[in-house]
């Protein structure tokens, strides 16, 4: 038990040295680490509550995704049936499924075949994303399957994460975290950023840009009641005034290559956009045919403006004016440039910590940890003397090793994490208390020095194992179930439990063994 072969001692010292070295970059901070040429080593990240910043949880409107897919399928079916000369009646997308009549019963089978050809298999199971069935002999019904809906949402979310990332990157903020959470959420964390309103305005905007011709024939009285002629629809201006526009899209945001903030004729902020070749040609053709008529610039189904086409717009560029400030024009430009969100996102949770509070928390956390450490170190010293010193060295090493492990895994230290740290310092010495008390006890029962130490470590180790195992269970539960602050706390707690076994048991045993071999004490002052 007290035998420590040389290779074992070298190994323990090596691990401890690595721990201390790897902890240093996190302790001295980024700039200092770079100065000493160790900027490449992993460092611990500071959580938002310490660095200040914004945490925003976005939720996708999943019903919206299915609705969009239904509309897309409706268009596809219509053109597909037209192409194959299958005459169909009015289509309907009510109740979350697409229904249409086939006028000629003889063509029903062909219609089903064509519709089926538009569905896709999902994954390995070969399940289709749409179910195609026939009811009442001539009505074809397309229903999205459960797997299909999941796949639509998944696709939309993957796209949404990309778009959000592009938009935040375009703002030039540093090291944002953008991760998918669950099936329909995106977590955005931007450190050191204290303008959450601008951030939300930017990532919460769908930014679906469309140009459509204004329907001049529509009856104004009908439009006021929200009714538009066939092939048109009623939209609203920002101030709520209704306007009828044709359903057909002249050109949309997917065809633009560049969007940037600019100034209009009256020096008011605008967004200038440039379309790609195909878009420019189409825009030119439509404007040529409709000189003198107005067209609507629509953003997320709201009409920003409806300027009159004075002359054909052939260059493929346009200016969008509205009630913009420089800031809102800039964020619209970024949003347009990054493309529309495939699904509308809603903020369901938002936490912002000012940089001042973050700095205060770090200071308070470091102060509390230091005082706790010094208090415990003194207490162990006066209680266990030499063995207390060993335990104290173990505690200090443990602090370094926890930091090193966190740095290696690129962990994030949060304020509750600091609390976990302080608690770990407190519980880590528990192992040494158990060992030392057991040694005292065995000594009292009349065992000799070596026996007492051996038995003390042996008996206490079992207890320490059981105590740590149960402690770890609660830590794992916190890690799996917890969110935010609970997770940060659990990570530090779990790492601390694991590393403290090494420092508080293995390391101190090596020290005690070395001391006994060197000095051969006849009594233990413990």
């Amino acid at each position, binding site marked *: 038990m007290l035998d420590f072969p040389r290779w074992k001692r070298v190994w323990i010292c090596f691990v401890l040295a690595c721990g201390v070295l790897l902890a240093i970059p996190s302790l001295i901070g980024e700039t200092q680490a770079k100065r000493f040429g160790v900027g490449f080593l992993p460092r611990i990240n500071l959580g938002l509550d310490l660095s200040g910043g914004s945490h925003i949880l976005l939720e996708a409107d999943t019903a919206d995704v299915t609705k969009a897919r239904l509309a897309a399928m409706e268009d596809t079916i219509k053109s597909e049936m037209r192409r194959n000369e299958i005459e169909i009646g009015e289509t309907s997308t009510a109740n979350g499924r697409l229904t249409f009549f086939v006028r000629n019963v003889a063509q029903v089978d062909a219609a089903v075949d064509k519709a089926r050809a538009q569905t896709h298999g999902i994954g390995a199971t070969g399940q289709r994303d749409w179910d195609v069935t026939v009811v009442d002999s001539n009505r074809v019904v397309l229903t999205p399957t459960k797997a299909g809906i999941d796949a639509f949402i998944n696709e939309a979310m993957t796209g949404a994460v990309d778009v959000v990332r592009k938009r935040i990157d375009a703002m030039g903020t540093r090291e944002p975290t953008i991760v998918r959470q669950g099936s329909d959420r995106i977590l955005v964390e931007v450190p050191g950023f204290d303008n959450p309103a601008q951030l939300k305005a930017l990532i919460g905007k769908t930014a679906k840009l469309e140009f459509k011709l204004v329907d001049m024939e529509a009856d104004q009285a009908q439009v006021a009641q929200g009714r538009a002629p066939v092939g048109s629809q009623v939209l609203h201006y920002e101030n709520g005034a209704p306007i009828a526009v044709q359903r057909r899209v002249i050109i949309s945001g997917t065809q633009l290559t560049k969007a940037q903030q600019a100034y209009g004729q009256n020096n008011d902020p605008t967004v200038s956009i440039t379309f790609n070749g195909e878009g420019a040609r189409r825009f030119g053709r439509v404007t040529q045919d409709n000189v003198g008529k107005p067209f609507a610039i629509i953003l997320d189904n709201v009409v920003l403006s409806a300027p009159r086409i004075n002359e054909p717009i052939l260059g493929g560029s346009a200016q969008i004016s509205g009630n913009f400030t420089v800031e809102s024009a800039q964020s619209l430009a970024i949003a347009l440039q990054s493309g529309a969100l495939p699904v509308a996102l809603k903020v369901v949770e*938002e936490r912002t910590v000012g940089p001042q509070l973050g700095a205060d928390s770090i200071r308070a956390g470091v102060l509390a940890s230091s005082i706790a450490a010094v208090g415990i170190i003194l207490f162990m010293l006066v209680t266990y003397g030499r063995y207390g010193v060993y335990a104290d060295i173990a505690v200090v090493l443990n602090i370094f090793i926890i930091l090193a492990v966190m740095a290696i895994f690129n962990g994030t230290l949060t304020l509750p994490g600091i609390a976990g740290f*302080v608690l770990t310092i*407190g519980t880590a010495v528990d192992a040494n208390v158990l060992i030392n008390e057991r040694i005292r006890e065995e000594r009292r029962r009349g065992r000799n020095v070596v026996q007492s130490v051996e038995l003390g470590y042996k008996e206490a180790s079992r207890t320490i194992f059981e105590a740590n195992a149960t402690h770890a*269970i609660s830590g794992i539960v916190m890690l799996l179930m917890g969110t935010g602050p609970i997770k940060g706390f659990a990570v530090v707690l779990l790492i601390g439990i694991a590393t403290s076994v090494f420092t508080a048991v293995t390391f101190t045993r090596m020290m005690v063994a070395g001391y006994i071999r060197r000095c051969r004490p006849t009594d233990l002052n413990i």
Partner: protein
Amino acid sequence: MRLLKLIPDNTNIGFVRLRGWAFGLTALLTVIAVIAVAARGLNFGVDFVGGLSIEARFDRPPPLDQLRTEIDRLGIGSASLQQFGDKRIVSIRLPVPKGADEGATNAEVKNVQNTVKAAFPAVTFGKTDTVSGKVSEELTFWGIVAVLLAVFAIAMFGWVRFEWQFGLSTFVAIMHDVLMTLGFFAVTQLEFDLTIVAAVLTIVGYSINDKIVIDDRIRENMRKYRQMDMRGIIDMSVNETLPRTVMTSLTILIALTALLVFGGHVLRGLSLAMILGVVVGTYSSIYVSSSLLISLGLKPQPLAAPKVKASAERMPTEGL
């Protein structure tokens, strides 16, 4: 050097003798805790009820009444104000605007901040939290699941490693600790948020740690002294582990007190909950879980009837 010994050698306190009294005290406190939770309820933070919370730091303690009137004048629901240990820091809590999108919430936060700033120009805003009703329901659900799961998992561990009596008594003791903590938060009306759930889970972890140490010793002594009665064994085990119990609770209390005093107001609730938990957890190790072992009829097994189960466990080797 003379070393400090908090507990003299061969201390022998008759813990089991006081069992009846302790049971009465435990029952009384438990009833108070249940009544407090039922009658006053917990002062849930926005994490669990949804809403928005703005933390404002003033240059000197602000008159709360005036602050409340200022915010009430906005007509966005009644604000609940709460001061932390530092009277200059006030947490302003408001319900989320009805049917709100981000725009409305943003405007509301700005609105409140501007109003407060107009009345108290020296104010700064530390942090702002907005949690929607849906997210807060999920956080509540998972918080409860986490605590229950942790307690069950640990009780199962006690059952597998020891005997079923240990698992059950530990389970009861831990539920007692959790209830006491909830009762404390109900009585003091301190804000109960996500970090407090972390604190409760830590209390569960600490308390179990303490119980395992004593249970481990009880098991060891049951095997050593097979003729002794259960009361004697428990008294002996609790006394033998007493120096460790006192030392460990003291070191942890030192750490937690440092956190409470110097850790800043954000960690105040967390540290307070854990300090309480350490005290309650230590008490329940002796008077709830250990005492319950007697009531559950755990007895040392005479040598003549060796237990099949025991042989599968790690036996501490006797003597050297």
